[in-house]
């Protein structure tokens, strides 16, 4: 089996798995990064979202072969210590209920904040529009993204 090399959270990793294996399962089963969640496997829920070269992708829809040579950020690598403005805002707004969908939500929000410093409610809702939360944390996600944007504007990252 061919080895595929990719960079995850700044570390180069060589993976020997079937090239058709979705990145989701490579992360979870081969690399032990279980912060990336499986919710549907078909691209519908967004809980497997990771950043590919900074842009959000659904890792269940990315075959390993396609990930070769690319750089990925998972929730474990968004910050060293949970200090990303989105992570901090998530805590302050008590966004999480069960929390299972939240790594995907946070990474999508982080990518949005990186491209739009001060997103409108419509922009937030549309960026996160295809993410599912069965616990109904949507209103708090909206306020957390707004809070993170305000914080970032006041001098923090991103």
């Amino acid at each position, binding site marked *: 089996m061919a080895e595929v090399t990719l960079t995850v959270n700044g570390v180069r990793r060589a993976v020997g798995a079937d090239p058709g294996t979705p990145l989701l399962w490579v992360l979870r089963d081969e690399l032990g990064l*279980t912060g990336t969640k499986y919710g549907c496997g078909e691209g519908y829920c967004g809980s497997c979202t990771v950043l590919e070269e900074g842009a959000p992708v659904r890792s269940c829809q990315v075959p390993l072969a396609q990930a070769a040579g690319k750089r990925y950020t998972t929730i474990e690598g968004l910050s060293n210590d949970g200090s990303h403005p989105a992570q901090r805002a*998530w805590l302050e707004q008590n966004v999480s209920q069960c929390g299972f969908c939240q790594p995907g939500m946070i990474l999508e929000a982080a990518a949005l904040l990186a491209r739009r410093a001060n997103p409108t409610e419509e922009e937030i*809702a549309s960026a996160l529009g295809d*993410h599912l939360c*069965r616990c109904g944390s949507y209103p708090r996600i909206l306020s957390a993204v707004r809070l993170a944007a305000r914080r970032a504007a006041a001098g923090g990252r991103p």
Partner: protein
Amino acid sequence: MSTRRDFLKVSLLAGGGLLVGFRWTEAAEGAAAAGVPFRPNAWVRIEADGRVVLVVGKTEMGQGVRTALAKILAEELDVDLDRVEIEQASPGPEYTDLGTGGSSSSMDGWDPLRAAGASARALLVAAAAARWGVDASGCRTEPGRVLGPEGRAAAYGELAAEAAARTPPETPPLKPAAERRLIGRRVQRLDGPAIVTGRARYGLDVRLPGMRFAVVARPPRFGDRLAGFDSTGALAVDGVEDCFAIPGGIAVVARSTWAALAGRRALVADWRAGAGGDFASEAHARALREAVAEAGVTTRRDGAGRAALAGAARRLHAVYEYPFAAHGAIEPVAATARVESGRCEIWSPTQTPNAVQAFAARTLALPPDAVTVHVTLAGGGFGRRLGWDFDLEAVEVARRIDAPVQLVWSREDDLVHGYFQAASAHRLEAGLDASGRVVAWDHRKASTPHNARRRPSREQLADPQFLAGSSWGVNDQPYAFPAVETSYRVVEAPVPIGPWRSVFAPSSVFARESFLDEVALASGRDPLALRLELLGADDAGVPRIAEPGGARVDRLRLRRVLETAAERSEWSRPLPAGRARGLAADVFHTETYVAHVVEVAPRARRRPGEPPFTIERVVVAIDCGVVIDPDGVAQQAESGVYWSLSNVLGETSFARGRAREENFDAFRIATFADRPRAIETHLVPNDDERPHGLGEPVVNSFAPALANALARLTGQRPRRLPFDLAALG
């Protein structure tokens, strides 16, 4: 070690800490009365380094239970919340009654946790007083320390060993409500940091050295039997190691989840059709509608019951329908197991650890204490994890291989092969006298009682008490009608039915609160005024406390949540044209009172799949007794709105013996696009002395309030969930 008769056990920990054992459940009272020696089933450790560890037997599924319980303890013990660590209990002789459901955790934990915290604090104070040779009354505490006369101070950790040698007080002093620092204040959830950094470990995140992953090929239709299978293709998939039959299907074992899933696709199984293979929800809905045309087994009769309808000046009736629904937690069910040299270990996000232990032991013919169950975080529960089917599948696979194994349900497995909320039909009829007063109330329900975890017996299916227990929201309705009859007709289905958030209440409350709105409209009454009247607002003859079907209802408290929701939503102020409001209320059997007012408007630009209306505002008024965390209440209120909204928008339907909605493209969960513009939660002051449940009660009155608003907006009344969006447009 000293024991305070039937209440508390105090001992010294290795390393000089204080161990306080207490009893969680009310079963303790019974045991004490029967002369059985006191045996704790819950523990707090105060370590010599000052750390406080609370061992909890409740499963965190997103309801915030771990934080709530830690707060209750920290308040009376007088420590900062961040000093409290939570350790998850595993079933065993000390933990015989674990389990999370019925929205009861904070309610059940309130008294024992406060008593344990207050006792430990009293012991620490007494130890400090003895050490300093002063009277305990001259000492007080601040978070984590005892303070004495002349500036003396000692940290809890240093006093722990001395405290462990003392006898706990008979009645430890509890903090007056006015002095509380934590209860009633907003805090950040304890599990938050682990969640936002990806460190939180759910059922699917268990990783063990050398572990395998397995999926199970299950009968494609209800009633199918396995006649044989060919695993050649599956075993040819790279990473697949084994395929074998287990009860309920064929397990495919592999070195990764993906290989197991690919192996299952390559498996060829021969299924033989059995009973139920032609089941369709449309035909079942017809059977339910036909069933409510006749009354079933009477579950409650007040006054003359249904017979009182005959004397009414005017009679109204309507039929409401409710669908099957999967739970659809974003984390599909999964469990990990290892069976090795006469022992079994299970890692599961279960809501019922003791049952998992008992059934695993029975499956393996092992004594229960040879089975250890580790409870993980759950990516949503909603009643699904009160079943142990997936845990036993993990055990069945683990016993056949020489490695630990994670048994994964794919999303499709989870939506198709779990158990479901039962479909039901409700027929309500009201009799009004000449002045428009409701004098008779008849509520018939037809549905399928729970059958997935245990099959009801033939006797149970005819037993009024059993059926009343499956009729929340019907037979325990809170309104004071002079004559009431409620009944239940069983309609069998091959669909597995089991607990689902708020269980039997959502369908009944949707029907009841919608029908009350119809009665109000037909008799020219304001729906709020009608409800208040039926709750005794202007009639001292209506008892304030009612006990319908064994549940306790305080009608004054229900009136107050209605009044609060009305006031906050400006109910009496007319809306501009093109807007409408609806109102509904419920009291859940945890004695939690909730009212919803929903305001709707037509949707301006409608994209495919979107409802023809927008929800402009939701006002939720809640009386849940003592408020442990106002933000926690608001969070649950928001969660309840979205849960109910999903119930309004989607369902699980069946065709040819199988669920049609196999993944989230078809199984509809409310999204950002469906969001109400605002959800406001208002807490209604009360003089209750304990907290009451929240997770389920917040669900029930949203859907009927929305239906009532839409009936006014469009002139079309939705009498079926999910709503027929085309008809409303």
